[in-house]
């Protein structure tokens, strides 16, 4: 609303004019514009990241192939040649693995008509815990569940399985062997949306050092050969594709909490 005062001959106010305008639509389109800007920026970032992966990770295989072929040409005996052929087959397997990973990423990011249905989180959690039963027993981990029976989220079933499995297997894998692993899985409502929280007392993540790269492809922060830097990357992409969000809080030596924010 704008109010202007009309004066005559420098005397006191003669009359006031009030103009009222409905700006709802303008504000809405502004908000929409901001939203699409963020989406484009986000997509751009993912594309850049993807092209980096393609150039770096595919190149590492192709340069290995080149190097092996160079050595092959210089080889002086059949045995030596044979050893290079064996090396080549190793590169072949590694290359195949990389392409499989890349394909998985592309399929998440381009799958627009993927099935979304209301899922009962407690049921999926039960299933995941059964899958992980052996590992839970081996680690003697204590699992606490506080999932409300009415916690239903609109999500793709396969993504839900993959996400729960990833976070829970991470919580077990990165446990601190000096204490009994404890994992708390809870569901709460935040501003009307469901939030699934997975909290562990594991080794924790140095957020200052790795926070920014935590969800990056092929970013791993441990020495373990099992840690390939794909899990969190895939889960974040699956969450994004479903319109959700993942946030993390962590302290080295204390533990990590991942929060999955589902959209309605």
């Amino acid at each position, binding site marked *: 609303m704008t109010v202007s005062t009309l004066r005559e001959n420098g005397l006191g106010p003669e009359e006031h004019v009030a103009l009222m305008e409905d700006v709802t639509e303008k504000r809405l389109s502004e908000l929409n514009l901001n939203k699409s800007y963020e989406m484009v920026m986000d997509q751009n970032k993912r594309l850049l990241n993807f092209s*980096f992966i393609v*150039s*770096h*990770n595919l*190149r*590492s295989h192709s*340069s*290995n192939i*080149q*190097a*092996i072929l*160079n*050595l092959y040409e*210089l080889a002086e005996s059949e045995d030596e040649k044979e050893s290079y052929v064996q*090396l080549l087959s*190793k*590169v072949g397997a*590694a290359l195949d693995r990389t392409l499989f990973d890349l394909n998985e990423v592309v399929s998440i990011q381009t799958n627009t008509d993927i099935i979304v249905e209301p899922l009962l989180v407690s049921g999926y959690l039960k299933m995941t815990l059964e899958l992980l039963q052996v590992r839970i027993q081996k680690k003697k981990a204590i699992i606490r569940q506080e999932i409300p029976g009415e916690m239903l989220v609109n999500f793709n079933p396969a993504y839900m399985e993959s996400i729960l499995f990833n976070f829970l297997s991470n919580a077990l894998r990165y446990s601190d062997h000096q204490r009994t692993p404890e994992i708390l899985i809870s569901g709460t409502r935040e501003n009307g949306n469901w939030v699934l929280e997975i909290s562990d007392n594991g080794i924790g993540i140095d957020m200052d050092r790795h926070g920014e790269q935590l969800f990056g492809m092929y*970013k*791993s*922060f*441990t*020495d373990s050969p099992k*840690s390939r*830097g794909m899990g969190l990357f895939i889960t974040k992409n699956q969450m994004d594709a479903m319109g959700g969000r993942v946030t993390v809080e962590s302290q080295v030596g204390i533990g990590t909490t991942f929060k999955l924010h589902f959209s309605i």
Partner: protein
Amino acid sequence: MNKEICVIDDDHIYQLIIEKIIRRAAIFVKSTAYRNAGHAYQQFKDPEFPLPHLILLDINMPLMDGWEFITQLSSCRPNLKNETKIYIVTSSIATADKMKAASFKEIAGFLSKPVSVQKLKEIGEQI
């Protein structure tokens, strides 16, 4: 001179390959390999520890990357530049990485993989 070389790279296939290239180049009497830059750093940070003459260092590695390795090591060994020759050896062909490497006085050179036997010979003969 008894030249020693060290390779820091997390790619285990590359480690197997470079080992053969080093043997082929027939210049170095001893070579060591680290798949974790942090382990190399733990060894090298002691100023009394004699550094190899040549270090082939990868950039993209988990936990500690190549840049961090140099930064940390040079804070323990201020004379690092004269103690060893560090060559960045990476599958990256990004100019950003090349430029970053040029900004480090401790880095003697930047090589894109693959490294040929010939190239390693040339570098080895210079040191």
